[in-house]
């Protein structure tokens, strides 16, 4: 099995975008287009295997070597800080990780005066680092979804979350205060795989670099 290449891809739109891009460099998996509830798909001719997993689990499968290659958002990589190679920016899945707050708070707010603020987020590590660099003490509230709700009900004054078009923020009366990072999907590679399968993986990286566009795009 060690001459196979295994991919871990996040279920949903990023998986579709990834397979579209992979198809351009000859990486395909006909089995995947069949309707099925399988989690692992194979292309035995090309010795390729694909696993569909939760986005936040992609780095784990790759770090432990269950998958050689993965595709995952830079947000997840920043949050998890795993020991992985991230050689190619796939340019899709564009969004921004931002600090946001309710519009009426913003009127009298000056970030220079921030201290001891409460922030709700799915990204406690990134958020903590961001505020620590600014010398601001924060109380972090880790949530697993619907972050915009937190300021509306008084759980926190501010949030750190992903925005792509900004529609959700606007609809909930929030405005962006600062951008922490611009996010796109990245190709990640297990350290040992890159060394032990350098011929195949080196080719994949070189081929992908040729086909990814110059422009980032939102995946919706």
């Amino acid at each position, binding site marked *: 099995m*060690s001459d196979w290449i295994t991919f871990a891809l996040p279920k949903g739109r990023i998986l579709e975008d990834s397979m579209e891009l992979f198809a351009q460099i000859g990486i395909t998996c006909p089995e995947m287009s069949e309707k099925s509830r399988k989690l692992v798909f194979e292309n035995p001719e090309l010795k390729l295997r694909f696993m569909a997993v939760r986005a936040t689990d992609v780095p784990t499968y790759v770090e432990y*070597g269950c998958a050689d290659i993965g595709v995952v958002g830079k947000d997840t990589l920043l949050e998890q800080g795993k020991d*992985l*190679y991230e*050689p190619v920016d796939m340019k899709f899945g564009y969004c921004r990780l931002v600090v946001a707050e309710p519009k009426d708070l913003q009127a009298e707010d000056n970030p220079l005066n921030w201290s001891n603020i409460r922030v709700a987020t799915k990204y406690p590590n990134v958020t903590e680092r961001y505020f620590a660099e600014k010398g601001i003490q924060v109380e972090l509230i880790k949530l697993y979804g619907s972050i915009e709700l937190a300021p509306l009900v008084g759980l926190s004054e501010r949030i750190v979350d992903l925005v792509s078009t900004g529609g959700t923020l606007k609809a909930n009366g929030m405005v962006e205060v600062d951008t922490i990072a611009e996010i796109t999907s990245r190709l990640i590679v297990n*350290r*040992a795989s*890159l*060394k032990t399968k*350098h011929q195949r993986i080196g080719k994949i990286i070189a081929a992908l670099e040729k086909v990814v566009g110059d422009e980032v795009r939102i995946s919706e």
Partner: protein
Amino acid sequence: MINSNALPESALPKGVRDFLPLKAAKVEYLQQQLQQVMAAWGFRPVITPQLEFFDQLEKGLGGDLHARAFRFDDRQSGRLLAFPPDITPQIARIAATRMRELPLPLRLSYSGKVLRHTEEQAGKNREIFQVGVELIGLGQPEADAEMIAMAIECLQGSGAKDFTLDIGQVEFFRGVMDGLSLSSDLARRVAGAIGRKDSTELRALLDEAGVDEAAREEVLALPRLFGGREVLERAAKLVKNQRSQRALDNLTQVLALLDRHGIAEYVTFDLGELRGLDYHTGITFQGFLPGYGQAVCSGGRYDGLMANYGNPAPATGFTFDLLNLLFALDRALEDQVKPRTDLLVYACEGAVLRAQQLTPRLRAAGFSAARDMLDRSIDEALAYARLMNYRRLLVVPVGEAALRLVNPSSENEDSLTLEELLQRKEL
């Protein structure tokens, strides 16, 4: 079901483990295999203490190990003590002080456990088993090649079939960076991006720094300079600076020596590999097994280390992380390593004296043997022998009657005299 009101008290802190006989046998087996290779190459073991003065230890600690040492006050001396997070600085201290009158080179090996703080993440070990060597006093490429050849032999000796020894050279990177004159913060971020092979981030950082076109091309190539020996040719076409060229010459010389050893097939190169950048001074290398995400061994040249202990000398070495090696080879070792005892000696009623007398003779003949002292039936003793991995149950009857040698799993049995059993080479 978990009862959250009554959390069981953990018996052990996180990040350390107990090894039960089946696993412990594998750890010991691997340790012996590695030590055998090291002894065959003329490396002599030294034994280092578990406590050091922190100020002594930190002279030889690179990277983040400094912050990862377990430290505390010493009531006796009033100084700060530490559990060593790495054995290399201890060897350097010993070589530079207690062994300083001896002629170089010194070939020393070690085997022991070290402790390191880790982030509170599940599954990260705080206790690491290291088996390694230091070659002190030789700066030649042949010494670098010796380390790589030995590491390969160690991997072969431990039963690894398919593996890669990945070689880097930090001087190549330094040569490229010399031309850039970046601020230290930016240089650190550039090194980080190269380490992750993140070309996008790297490009953005170089834009920020306003690096000129020629230098830019050299830096941007670093994340892609990995692969087989063709990497060295690609790199040679790319760089103009002398420092990087010297690094490539060094790699080429080492590769020629590895060819001579007939082991170049195991080797790959990665000039963007920057681990240990702050203390390595030349060749670095790491061993990888397919399907296991972490390096099982790592090493390289650190010519500055001995000077930190007041006795400058070139030095190189490597260390195996025994637990990484164990987890990478766990299944492959299954058949090779079984902690099995040959015989469980069972006495029938009235035959205890006979059993007690013949057991030492079995051991003298080379069998491992334990006495079953409990008052129980043969069937009960057989069930025990099966569960505890005894190869045979030896049933000792009264008087001169023949011994019965029963296989606990198949329940096949032989009948034989003690003399016949003692003559046997194989059960």
